[in-house]
Structures are given as C-alpha cells and as structure tokens.
C-alpha cells in the first residue's frame, strides 16, 4: 500500500486529556489505572477511567447524542487542535471528501444499561428521553464525530471488538487509495460500561490489580476507556512526517473468545502488515504488543511475535499505562507508536515486575531512549479478529 500521512492526532485516556500526559507517561512509565469506582460496579478490579467525562457537555445542536461515550469523544476531539486541523483539511479537499471510520466495541451501551433501570412499571417501556440511535447504536460515536466535525463523506463504525480501531486505519486507507476520499478521520472511542466489566468478569479475565502484561503472575486485564483520533491524508508532508506504512489483517477461525494457542492468526496479521509496507522484520525497531495481561493472550501473542521476530527486537505492552481500552486500543496504541518514533524512545511497561520465563520475545519492562524508525503495533479481538499496523517516517518507507 501507499504510505498514508498522519497529519494530526490526539488521544484522551486515564492518563489525561491530549498528548502531553501521554508523552510524560512514556518518559516516566506512569500508569493511570486505579481501583474501580465506576458507577455502581462492585468488582474487585482496576480501571483506567478518563477524568472529566461526566462534566463534558456536547454542543447544543448535538444534545441528542448526549451519553458518556459521546462525551468522551467530545473531550477527545477538543484536544491538541485536532478539530481545527480537520476543519483546515476540509477547506483544502472538501468536507464530502473526508471519511470517518471510528472503532468501538460498545459505543454508548451504558445509556441502555441505565435506561433498563428506568423501565415503565406498566409496560416495561424504556424512558422517553432514551435516544437509541444516537447513544446506544454501534454507529453513534462515528455519527457524532462526523456531525461534530461537519464532515459529509463516507462514514462507518468498525466493530470487531478489540481490533476495531486498528482496522479503521485499514478501511480508511483502502478507500483513500481507491480514490473515493482524499482524507479520513479515524480513531476509536470506547468507554466504561457494565456489559464489558461484568462480561470480562464472567470470563474470569479481570485482574485484581493493575494489569501486568508478560508477568509470570499476570492474572488478567484492566479495562480502560479512551478517545483517540487521527487525521489521515493521501498527500503532503515531508520526509520527516510520520505515516501509516502498512496494515495487515487476519482471522483466527478458531474460537469466539480464546486466541489461537500458537498465535497463527496473529502471525499472519503481522506478516501481512510487513508485506503491505514492503518491509522485513529487521526493519522494525519496536513492537507494541496487544499484550492484554491474560495468561493465554500473552502466551499466544508471544508465540507469534517470537516466531516472527525472534528475540532481537524490543517489544512490550503499554496497557499497564492506559488499561485495555478495547475498541479504542488500536488507535490508542497507534498514538503510543507514533510518539515512540517522535520521542526516540521505547516506552516502559508499568505494572510488569517479573517476566514470565515461558515467554521468549525480548520484552522490555523499563523504557529507554532508542532510535525508533518504525513500529509495528498489534490489536487482536474476540471472534479471532487480528490487525497489525506499521508506522514510520516517510523517509523510512520502503
């Protein structure tokens, strides 16, 4: 594929609003995880909750979209001059030539969970103020972003569980290459809700402490929430500009909620991403793992990563900083990957203490300055949906 320019990006998570706290966390190895106090949830686990979501207000004209998930989107879009960068691109190429592709797993399902507590006593109906389309529906976050940014091009929610927002990059790139659009806003918005907290609890996949990817004693994930956005453009930029160099996707065709034990699907996604970028494994300087911190996910991904890269390339997971932001994880970790290149630094892996001796890839717990030219980032989801992305400066494209 032709490299796609990342001309603006931003991310809001439990680390804080915008890129500045992410840069700080990458340098200092900080974590935003804290004991779960979300809503009425009674689970002994840690979460990565965005501060200030509940206080965020949507613009008056978009009040029908009001729900926690779209408030997170609004808070995210307001950071780092992102909305202004999109407006400027819309002036250049036309608002109907900019697509919107947003990854999410649960969109505003919390709104429905809350509405089910307020059903009519007589007929069980949902309250009149409940707006299914603009809050609960999977498309709601994508539609909100499109309307908020005043765009008029193609638009879709990508919802493949935890690979959603990584795959949004691939979808947008294809339609840009086919000439349907000149630019795209891609990203992920996923926020805390009872379905995912109690759902992952039912699978016994929630860690009782901040998650510890690759640790010998890892015991599950910490759920996080985030809104992360990129503006992709076909043209422009200089040799130093950072671009998406390749994207690769695959399916496990194995099980609904467990990864392939040997990581075959994961490996095929990575190979496809390298192939699309016309790069070899030796061209990659850092792999940002999916690295959720469950015993089986990390073991499966290690088989795939070690099988492909051996132990020559630093790898780790940054989910100890942000938690697992599910449908937003691909976009969040795209931000981490790009900042690793910009800052010349492999980030650290807070939470991880003692590496699992069974895992063989070169996992680095502590962050360190390094010449990071190209990064491969993994995102894998339920249903065996895998996506790998390769980022690098244009001058390091093949």
């Amino acid at each position, binding site marked *: *594929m032709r490299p796609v320019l990342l001309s603006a990006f931003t991310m809001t998570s439990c680390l804080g609003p915008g890129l500045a706290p992410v840069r700080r966390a990458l340098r200092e190895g900080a974590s935003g995880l804290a004991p779960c106090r979300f809503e009425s949830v009674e689970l002994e686990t840690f979460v990565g909750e965005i501060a200030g979501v509940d206080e965020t207000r949507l613009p008056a004209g978009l009040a029908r979209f009001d729900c926690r998930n779209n408030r997170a989107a609004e808070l995210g879009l307001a950071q780092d001059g992102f909305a202004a960068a999109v407006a400027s691109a819309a002036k250049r190429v036309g608002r*109907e030539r900019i697509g919107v592709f947003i990854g999410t*797993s649960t969109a505003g*399902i919390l709104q*429905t*969970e809350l509405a*089910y507590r307020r*059903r*009519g006593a007589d*007929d*069980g*109906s*949902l309250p009149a103020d*409940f707006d*299914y*389309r603009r809050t609960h*529906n*999977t*498309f709601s976050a994508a539609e909100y972003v499109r309307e908020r940014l005043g765009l*008029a*091009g*193609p*638009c*879709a*929610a*990508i*919802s*493949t*569980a935890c690979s959603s927002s990584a*795959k949004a990059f691939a*979808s947008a*790139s*294809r*339609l840009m*290459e*086919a*000439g*349907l659009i000149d630019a795209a806003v891609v990203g992920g918005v996923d926020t805390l809700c009872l*379905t995912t907290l*109690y*759902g*992952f609890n*039912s*699978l016994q996949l929630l860690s009782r402490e901040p998650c510890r990817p690759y640790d010998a004693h890892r015991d599950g994930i910490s759920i996080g929430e985030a809104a992360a956005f990129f503006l992709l453009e076909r043209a422009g930029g200089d040799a130093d500009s950072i671009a998406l160099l390749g994207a690769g*996707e*695959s*399916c*496990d*065709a*194995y099980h*609904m*909620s467990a990864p392939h034990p040997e990581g*075959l699907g994961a490996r*095929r996604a990575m190979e*496809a991403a390298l192939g699309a970028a016309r790069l070899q494994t030796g061209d990659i300087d850092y792999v940002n793992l999916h690295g959720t911190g469950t015993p089986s996910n990390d073991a499966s991904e290690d088989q795939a990563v070690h099988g492909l890269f051996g132990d020559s390339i630093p790898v780790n997971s940054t989910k100890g900083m942000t938690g697992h932001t599910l449908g937003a994880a691909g976009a969040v970790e795209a931000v981490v990957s790009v900042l690793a290149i910009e800052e010349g630094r492999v980030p650290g892996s807070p939470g991880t203490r003692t590496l699992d001796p069974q895992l063989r890839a070169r996992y680095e717990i502590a962050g360190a300055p390094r010449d990071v030219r190209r990064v491969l980032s993994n995102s894998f*989801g*339920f*249903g*065996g*949906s895998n996506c790998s992305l390769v980022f690098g400066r244009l001058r390091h494209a093949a």
Partner: protein
Amino acid sequence: MNLAARIEGIGLVGPGLADWSGARDALAGRGPFTSSPTVIPAPDALPATERRRAGKCVRLSLAAGLQAAASAGRSARDMGAVFASSTGDGENLHAICEALASDDRLLSPTRFHNSVHNAPSGYWGIATGSAHAADSLAAFDASFGAGLLEAFGRIAADPRLPVLLIAYDAPYPEPLNATRPIPDSFAVALALASPAHSDRGALVSLEGAREPPTTMDDEALEGLRRNIPAARSLPLLALLARGTPGRVVIEYLDGFPLEAQVGT
C-alpha cells in the same frame, strides 16, 4: 475512482424471500411478491458447541453467506468477508441489559462473547475455516452502503482475493423494538471478485450519487427496503434479478447516496 467488482453469486434470506433463486422473479417484477415471516435455516455448518450458542444474526449471516459462495462456485474458506449490520443480536443484548439492571448482575461467558458486533464474523470463521481478513461494520440505516464500500475497497486493494459481503439485520425484542423497530430478519450476501480476475456475473461499479434513492415498485418490497437497513440492497438486487444493464441509486448516508452501475 476504482470501485468495481463482479457479483459472482448472491444469497438472500428474508420475509417471503427464502433464497435468491426463489426470489428472483418477484424481485424482477416477473411474478408476485408474497410476504411471510422469515425462515432462518439451521446453522449446520457449525460444530455442535457453536451451533447451540449461535444466535439469530449468526444463523442469518451464515445462511446468506454460504448461499452466495455456493452460487459463485467458490469455497467460503478462500474468501475474505465483510459483515455489515445496523444492530447485533437483540435477544442477547436484551438479556444482558435485564441482568445488569437486576440485583444479580452475573452474565454467562457465552452471552458476553455473543454480544460483540463481530460475533457473526467469529462464528463464520469457525464454520468456514476462512482465515482471511473479515470486517464488521455498522452505520445505522446506512449499514448496507457502508458494507458495500468496504467490500469494494477490499477488492480494489487486493484484487486476487474474492470477498463476501454479508449484510443482515434482525428485530429487537421489546422494549428495544419500540425504539428501533425492524419488522423481520433479513440478510443479503454478495460474492464479489475483481474484474481483473473474474469474468463471471454482473460487473458493478460504485460512486457517489446526487439523486434520491431508487425505490421498489412493489409496495411490500418497498416497505422492507425502507424499514430494514440490509434491505436497502433491494433495488440493486431487483436490477440484478432482471439481468439487464442499468443503474440504481442505493440509499446510504443522508445526503450521500451511492450509485451502482450494473454492466454485463
């Protein structure tokens, strides 16, 4: 613009539309359309464990997808897949929301993994063994158009890999049905291949349109088109059923319809 594909095969499951070959005459206007409740075939392609767990959307998408692959004379194992749906498994979601609103919030693991929008894609992979890339998209009423663009985008990016587009919707139970009424289950599947690698089936190219969407002459079919997002495909299916070249405008996003040119 480079969004073109050959439609090598079609699958259809809907009210009064048992399968593509049986539905052709009614869609082409050569015979009457009689609506009757959708009958969703059993998911025989799944292993026993998954068959027990499969919800309505899994069964719908599997039936339509396999029908399209078979009529294209291809194995689904060798195809990529794009799933598009406005909703998900409504009965499963309703059960989850009821449990979460109760004093006992425990969910079953199966309920949870069936709740993801890409559950049909996951089950599809298990049933067909296809390890190729698969997408799951949602765009509310525009979901069929979104899936069409995605599938054509995949064909353009990797012309060697045929792609199945599977668009489906199923009704919610109450009380959600009142907020999002969908009259019955409907699924359509198109087996697509690059014109550079296939000369079978109608050649279809896509672009943005400026005109209002094409409607169905038959009132009942037009009712389906308007009320089920996946049935926004009906004008395209009607043109394909007639087997003649032409063009239709497919309802997509507000102010952004899609034009499909059908050649030979």
